[in-house]
């Protein structure tokens, strides 16, 4: 159960090696020990993630999960050892945009992982959390989904789809008391963005985690990380195309 001041007891991280996801779990665990279910592709990195959380005093269970398989059974498995108070939908691929928009298999894989699998687990999480009568779902979207850019539009399109789905799910689950938060981070320094030129207002997994923890505690439905991106993106959405395409972003 989540208590009166917003401390959860259990967290499901879908995308068990996601740096933002792990930072979020750690941020919650800094106040109270947690029961954590990590769902991800079996790998040394997943083992390391488990060890990292155990060192923080968490009780960690690992479930194999590959978003490319369209596997939503992972959600049912995650709920077998008890209630899940907070579920983080944190898996995703950035991909190489030039390859993605010219190669069918690459484009479809991005869409499958970032959008189709996210929708699948969203449906399953909605069902489980309605049945348990409480819970919070956090979906990691991206500012890249707010307006497609030439440099990043395949990834952006998948996040736009995820964002729309979870924004709708927010409304659908409101009457049953399940909270959904859509998080739109900007450029975050992680393994995913390693070697890329940081965009303005770039941030860290820990900073995004702090935004997420606050959003879950106070039941915010849509947040940007860092917060000023909300206004930046609001302006960028209205920039005329001839100017937008010349912007160094």
């Amino acid at each position, binding site marked *: *159960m989540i*208590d*009166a*001041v917003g401390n959860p007891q259990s967290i499901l991280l879908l995308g068990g090696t996601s740096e933002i996801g792990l930072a979020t779990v750690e941020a919650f665990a800094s106040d109270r020990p947690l029961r954590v279910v990590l769902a991800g592709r079996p790998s040394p990195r997943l083992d390391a993630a488990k060890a990292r959380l155990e060192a923080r005093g968490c009780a960690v269970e690992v479930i194999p999960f590959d978003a490319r398989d369209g596997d939503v059974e992972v959600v049912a498995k995650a709920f077998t050892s008890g209630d899940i108070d907070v579920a983080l939908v944190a898996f995703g691929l950035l991909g190489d945009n030039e390859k993605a928009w010219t190669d069918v298999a690459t484009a479809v894989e991005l869409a499958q992982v970032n959008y189709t699998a996210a929708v699948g687990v969203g449906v399953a999480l909605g069902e489980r959390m309605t049945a*348990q*009568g409480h819970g919070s779902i956090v979906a990691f979207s991206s500012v890249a989904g707010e307006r497609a850019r030439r440099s990043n539009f395949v990834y952006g399109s998948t996040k736009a789809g995820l964002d729309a789905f979870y924004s709708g799910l927010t409304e659908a689950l409101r009457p*049953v*008391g399940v909270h959904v938060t859509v998080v739109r981070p900007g450029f975050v320094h992680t393994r995913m963005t390693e070697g890329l030129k940081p965009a303005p207002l770039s941030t860290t997994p820990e900073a995004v985690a702090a935004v997420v923890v606050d959003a879950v505690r106070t039941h915010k439905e849509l947040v940007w990380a860092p917060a000023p991106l909300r206004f930046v993106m609001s302006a960028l959405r209205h920039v005329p195309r001839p100017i937008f395409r010349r912007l160094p972003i």
Partner: protein
Amino acid sequence: MSDTQLLHGWGRTAPSLARVVTPRSVEDVVAAVTSAGPRGVIARGLGRSYGDPAQNAGGTVLAMAGLGEIHAIEAESGLVDVDAGVSLDTLMRAALPHGLWLPVLPGTRQVTVGGAIGADIHGKAHHVVGSFGNHVRALTLVTADGGVHELTPEDDLFWATVAGMGLTGVVVRARLQLHHVETAYFKVDTEQIDNLAELMARQSTDDEKYAESVSWFDAVTTGAHFGRGLLTRANHATVADLPAKLRDEPLKFDAPQLLTVPDVFPSGLLNRLTGKLFSELWYRKSPTRMGAIQNITQFLHPLDIIGEWNRGYGPRGFLQYQFVVPEARSDVIREVLERMTAARQVSALNVLKRFGEGNRAPLSFPMPGWTLCVDIPIGPGLGALCDELDELVLAAGGRHYLAKESRTTPAAIRRGYPRFDEWRKIRDAVDPHNVFASDMSRRLELTGD
């Protein structure tokens, strides 16, 4: 007779969804208990617990107010026989014309008899009469197997049910011993006291001369007047104490509800500024005065004049932090208040009381010592502050009150209640498959593996 509802406690935090069933008979209760799904069932009274003991996410909640008959009031012996869903307000109004008084009344009368037993509530008279369970002569409990049991204070299950937070079964009926009174009025001594140390010293003196004793203090003012407050103590007025105009109907009781707070307030209205203002007005309104005749609402339940006052805290809600520490560790009271002030948390309703002896129930809250109760709106830093306060309280041999609890840890409850395992053994024997469950029982691991 059932529908799905989001339920929360009086603090309006952490709502959850449950199937709500309104039983109209003991048979209905038995049917609901024996047909409970995997997430179990819990009884709910009038929802005055601050946290989550009367909600059951994904399971069944029994709305007990539907079981609300007063079966008998015996004026001479003072015994009453009531359904568990009868509110203390209803019972008090019905008993007063017979010259009978409920010895234990909490800060609101809007609680049910079942809830009063489940939380083993206390009132301003605790130092003399103890808690609610002390006045229960028998109770009827529906257990997980659908059995209907008559229990008396001879039974261990009786004492596991008193303060058992509904987790031993559903109390459906009880026989209570009331006290005899001549009037519905109190003869009240109010003392305006300049600082906390003196307030506590005054409250430790002569307390046994009063049937009721409590103090309110200011938790905003710092410096020399830190913890200034009002000590109010009273005895039941006799007919001879009353002014002539009240003597014709000494047992008459009117309790108007002046207004109901609409659900329109944003969070954050109670802040340092309004907190200061409120504290100043509250302190100034009651200068020292001895022997004033006050009615029940004036003396015991000033907040009952306003319906749904919890809405004033806005949608984020609030929590009430209540603990008790042994007499010898009264220093913790001051320490807790200093930490609160340092953390810039504002509480307007601050109640301090000295408890008398506890009772046999393993999970009963009161113990000889001081209990402090503060209301704090939910906001940044509150969780961390409360964790810090927990450590102070537990290290001093104190504990939390489950009827108010909404955020501590399973370990804190076990530390505060050394007889927890004894309670668990009795509970588990009568409910081995965990049919009874609540959000609180899951959060604090009061039941289950």
